[in-house]
């Protein structure tokens, strides 16, 4: 039994296919959706946590996703925050659903909790100073 986090990127158009349904129904994967951004004409993105499943099951499920044109990567990327350059405006907190990026309600200074981050990358473009970056 393994537990892993993966990032699935869909090209435009693939959002119409019920891929997660098949992961559960056909491959018997126990999935938890950590983040989803899917709109019909844009690239979609899904962050899944897969647990209580065998390595083989998981590999078959992921192979199915790839066959259907989705890009599958482990969640090995991370967001880095250049704290020294930060002006603590808070613009990034507007898009950070898991509240990994948060302003302290007393000091109004930003903090970044890497453990809460699901690498949705929304903060990368939301940061007006360009100091939140994806690193591999």
């Amino acid at each position, binding site marked *: 039994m393994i537990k892993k986090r993966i990032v699935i990127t869909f090209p435009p158009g693939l959002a119409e296919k019920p891929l997660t349904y098949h992961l559960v129904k056909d491959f018997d994967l126990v999935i938890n959706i950590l983040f989803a951004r899917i*709109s019909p004409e*844009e690239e979609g993105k899904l962050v899944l946590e897969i647990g209580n499943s065998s390595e083989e099951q998981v590999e078959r499920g992921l192979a199915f996703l790839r066959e259907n044109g989705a890009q599958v990567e482990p969640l090995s990327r991370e967001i880095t925050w250049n704290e020294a350059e930060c*002006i*603590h*405006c*808070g*613009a990034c*907190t*507007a*898009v950070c659903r898991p509240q990994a990026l948060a*302003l302290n*309600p007393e*000091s*109004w*200074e930003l903090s970044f909790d890497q453990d809460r981050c699901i690498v949705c990358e*929304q903060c990368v*473009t*939301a940061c*007006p*100073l*360009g100091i939140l970056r994806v690193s591999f």
Partner: protein
Amino acid sequence: MAKSYEEIAHRIRQGKAVVLTKEEFLKAVDEQGVDRAAETVDVVTTATFGAMCSSGAFLNFGHADPPIKMSRVWLNGVPAYGGLAAVDAYLGATEQSELDPTYGGAHVIEELVAGKRVRLRAVSQGTDCYPRREVETWVSLREVNQAYLFNPRNAYQNYAAATNGSDRTIYTYMGTLLPRYGNVTYSTAGQLSPLLNDPYYRTIGVGTRVFLGGAQGYVAWEGTQHNPAVKRTDQGVPLGGAGTLALIGNLKEMSREYLRAAVFHRYGVTLYVGVGVPIPVLDQDLAAQLAIRDKDILTSVYDYGVPVRSRPALAQVSYAELRSGAVTLQGRRVPTAPLSSLAKARRIAALLREEVRAGRFALNPPVQPLPATTPFRPLTIRQAEGEE
């Protein structure tokens, strides 16, 4: 009991003046009441640090030999306006590089302030008195003759909050707005903001000395879109964007700490500007205005997903609610996020307090008050000159 500017200046010289930041003043009001605080406190410092698009710098490069009348000018590939005398130019903060839209005038200003040299290119048709037709060189802030920030509109007195009712993410000057009312953004220092503390511009007018980007600057004029006649609360707080300031200051004395280039994704380049204003506590009326709190400052939340000038207002909220982390929109709790830095604004207010206390930052009455009534007109699209 009223105090004069002279009395306050005298107390500063004697080292007896009580100078507090706005937040410290609120504590004094809690402890002493407004009437007593009006007497015991001499100066209250206010500040803001936010994105202010209507900013830019005048530069004079000096004359080359042979000289050139620069008609088109670029700094690090960013066009500057050269339709002035031979070697004068104005570099606007939001002007984008012709090669890279994520680099603009604000970045050039920040690099100059950081002490770096930037690439200057200029072309001309050539004249009898200015025969040179092209120049390419490197210039720094230290080497140019004059470099001053002249920002036509800064320090907006209140500003609307933004949300997005459409079903796609939109990228605006109010940041990334998530679909279906996914978030609300706001941009203000709130109770710390200069013009909200002197809502009728009694002490802030033409000639008022201000903190601008790390240097001492001045209010040059009313800001563009100055609109004092908006609806106000009983305390005089405007319910939306109202007064604005045109500010001027020596770029050579400014610091990257208080002047930062920014890019709003799919909107463009802008400049974060630190502005601070010390307000003399002249009388009880002014003290009462200075006692304004986030809970008393209201603004409207507009749907930026509707692409028209008069966007629908969805709710009226206080800055205390916006600061709490969520507001209620159409019966749902929606998370909020600021765009201007309260942490930086506080740093400016504290710095200004020290400067005023030490007598290094003098307070002076305005040379001329800002207009109390200025109409704010939209742009009419006409097909013919004579059309109404």
